[in-house]
């Protein structure tokens, strides 16, 4: 049930086979990896940002009508329309948006009149911190659980399987709600909602962050634990681990050094998939816990049909995903020595 995309599987497969027969497939330098990611990022960003222009152009009614209201005169409507550039053909509008966006200008919010770029950058740190903490927790706890269950097996292994199932099936907002019900309402350990900036108080920031980060991590922990367990079991059954055992090394070195480094590649790939999921999850979590991040921004903007904001957030989210994938690809290249170093 862990989501592993095909490219991840190929990598994992290449790894499992010992690799030399597939060595030519993974002969990629770090530069090559970066170039490949960037090459993929460009069409991705164009697709994500262009989508709304295409949609707007095929639907009746537009932003100008929304701003001026149904009862405004035709003249007012047309002047606002012209002001927004909506009288131009859709591809010209998109081109304008794109050229401005490249310079960091994502337009102005239809609801607040503020610059979208500014609104986003003021809320970005919350989301980044939330995703960062959740990713870190997923990685550390998930890998630890996965390794432990691969080595110990038995009850822990079955518990991880069950946990992975729950992590998959429990909607993140529901987990958040349960955490509030238990830890905020009943035990009163943490606030139910709200956010204290880290600049005001580190302790309060942590306390306002604990439940959202936990809610967001659970699914990631489950997925990471399951993937780690599976690839560790694979590696632990391999010939080179048998030979390492035969050379009498300490079990801790066998598991944590020899096996884990080999098992890490597919785990890292799942981490990338998780990062995409976590980013989507912040939208829910920020709304459950009333955190002032991009997620709550995009929901209110969607409800208010504030297209420039929604679009800006979509582009920023895509950029974050691209960056995370890039980091993971580089990490993968570093982990896997089978690249052309000459």
């Amino acid at each position: 049930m862990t989501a592993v995309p095909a490219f991840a599987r190929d990598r994992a497969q290449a790894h499992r086979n010992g690799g030399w027969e597939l060595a030519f497939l993974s002969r990629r330098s770090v530069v090559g990896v970066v170039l490949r990611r960037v090459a993929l990022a460009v069409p991705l960003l164009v697709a994500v940002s262009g989508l709304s222009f295409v949609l707007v152009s095929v639907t009746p009614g537009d932003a100008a009508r929304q701003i001026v209201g149904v009862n405004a005169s035709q003249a007012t409507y047309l002047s606002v329309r012209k002001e927004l550039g909506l009288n131009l053909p859709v591809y010209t509008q998109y081109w304008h948006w794109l050229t401005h966006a490249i310079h960091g200008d994502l337009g102005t919010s239809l609801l607040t009149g503020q610059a979208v770029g500014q609104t986003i950058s003021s809320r970005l740190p919350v989301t980044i911190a939330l995703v960062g903490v959740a990713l870190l927790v997923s990685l550390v706890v998930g890998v630890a659980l996965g390794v432990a269950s691969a080595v110990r097996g038995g009850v822990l292994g079955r518990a991880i399987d069950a946990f992975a199932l729950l992590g998959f099936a429990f909607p993140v907002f529901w987990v958040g709600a349960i955490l509030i019900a238990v830890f905020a309402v009943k035990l009163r350990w943490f606030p139910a909602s709200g956010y204290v900036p880290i600049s005001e108080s580190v302790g309060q920031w942590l306390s306002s962050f604990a439940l959202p980060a936990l809610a967001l991590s659970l699914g990631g922990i489950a997925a990471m634990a399951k993937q780690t367990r599976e690839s560790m079991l694979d590696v632990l059954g391999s010939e080179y681990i048998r030979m390492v055992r035969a050379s009498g090394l300490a079990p801790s070195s066998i598991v944590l050094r020899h096996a884990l480094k080999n098992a890490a590649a597919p785990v890292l790939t799942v981490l990338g998939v998780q990062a995409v999921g976590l980013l989507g999850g912040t939208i829910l979590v920020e709304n459950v816990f009333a955190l002032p991040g991009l997620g709550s921004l995009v929901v209110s903007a969607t409800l208010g049909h504030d297209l420039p904001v929604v679009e800006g957030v979509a582009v920023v989210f895509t950029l974050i995903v691209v960056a995370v994938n890039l980091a993971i690809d580089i990490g993968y290249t570093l982990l896997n020595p089978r690249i052309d170093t000459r």
Partner: protein
Amino acid sequence: MTVVPSPVDSTWGQAGISETPKFLGRLMRRPVAIVCVGYVAALIAVAVVAPIAMPWVANQHAGDLLATRQGPSSHHLLGTDTLGRDVLERILVGTRVSLLGVGEALAVVLVLGVPFGLVAGYHGGWLDRIVTWLGDLTFSIPAIVMIMVVLAVFPESMLAGMCTLGVVAAPGLMRVVRAATLQVRDELYIGAARVSGLSHVQIIRRHVLSRIAGPIIVQASLLAALALLVQSYLAFLGLVVAAPAPSWGGMVADGVNALELQSWLIWPPGIVLAVTILAFGLLGDAARDATTERWSPTPSRSDTSRRRYRRKPVRPADDSDQQRRPSRRTRDETDRSTDTRGALLTVDGLTASFGTRAGRATVLADVSFAIDEGEAVGLVGESGCGKTATAMAILGLLPASGTVDSGKIIFDGRDLTSLSARGMGRIRGGEIALVSQEPMVGLNPAFRVGWQLAECVRRHLHLPRTEAKAAAIELLRLVRLPNPESVARRYPHELSGGMAQRVAIARALAGNPKLLIADEPTTALDVTVQAEILNLLRELRRDRQMALLLVTHDWGVVADVCDRALVMYAGEIVERARVERMFRAPLHPYTEALFASNPYLANHADELPMIPGAVPLPGMWPIGCHFHPRCRYAIDQCRTGAIALARPEPDHETRCTEYKRLAGAAR
């Protein structure tokens, strides 16, 4: 929790090729699948019936305002919400909109994914590349953000939102269908169908579709789970399903708003959601298992990994065992007392078994032999005779399901079968080292050669880092690798097979072992390299006074390197003698047959006789002599009782009663 655009794992698609009727049959034999399908069917019934049976619920703005936020009662089985409406009623009526969302997304995914995937897999070419590229692309889009963009343009349109999800998830399904189609296409009978004049459309319909149904069902179930998750997200955020209409996600949102006052309200809709997502997910898992059923002959490895560190406590042989072959045990006992004096390694009555689906199967039956210090002993036999199992049992490294059931392995005065894991760790590598058959997969691909050697040096000789590094390079020089410094910096995949085997030998030597077990050390190598490696082993043995247990099926290697030879057949030692004596006059029909089928030893240049039949699998050994079904000397006695080792000469033993006929034939 993790909204991934598509939880699409193409291993499911790739492994799972199956024919629909059989596939559905296999699927529905699984209790999990039956429960899940039953549950979903019941939900669909509720989705159809509930809004009709309770028409007031969908538009009910408020219920009994005097009875708001009540817990479960006989009147309201699941209590009432903040506006006094019955929670159960709202859950039942809300089923429709949830399943509707799932249906919409699923329809789009299938309509886009299946045809494009089929054509891409079947025809290949540019369409194939586009599908692959699209898949890569969509894996990095957070689906929910795309849906937000669409919902900003089409307010509150669940159809638009779920269709967007379908579009984003479709490339994932395309890839799975493509992979499955590729596999079917490459199979022979499609080629045959093409020859017989069927059109492409007919082939796809008749042969391909039926066989890729399994992976599609797997994906559809998992996508349904994803779609329900996303639908609940959107409903929770209030982006779809306008109030007062009930939806599961929206009901959790109502519950969250009232959490401080009544925490009950988040539970019923949340549990229904989780259970339903779980049902789709488990159905997908069961379907995947059903598609891969035929490809997974090995029992689950999940709970076995730990046993490798442990060995079963040694217990004396079963009484029944002793009763069955009393003569043989006593006979062997006396034999041993004479030929194991001063031995470095004494294996005594070693019996080991593996776990299989059918139960435990004995792989080693009462194996006894000894190796003196500095002696080279060849262990010979066909594949499956238990040679490697013997070697691994000595090292305490039987595969996960293997255990030593009885017998002793005395090495240098200690019984290895009763050593702790820590004690065994000191023996391995330090006193007994192993060189394996496949050097290329025997080295850890993730670490540099020098590092791997230095680690062993540090472990066994307790040298500091820098000295260990120098010692590692010295070891590489010792195994005659040119340019040892450069080799130390390389990764295993940068070595040739012969170099890798030298490195493996160097690693084995790192702890100055007294005994080296070489398991088919030259089998995977080129002929010229084989000779070099054998030379190296011979010299190392001479220079270091190291005993050698050489597992092989190659008599040339035995003649070249070994002092004595042990012949194994189906878990038993059937003959042992000094090498020259065995070559001159083999006293077991199996040894004789092995010689006869050896291209270098056979007399007939034109026709190489084969040994008829094959080595019986563990657990399927015949009664009596294990070799009798393939033996040309077999008499009735061979088929009835176990055969004891006989000793026709002081240093020559055979597990055959008819050895006299054999010796006569040889002369």
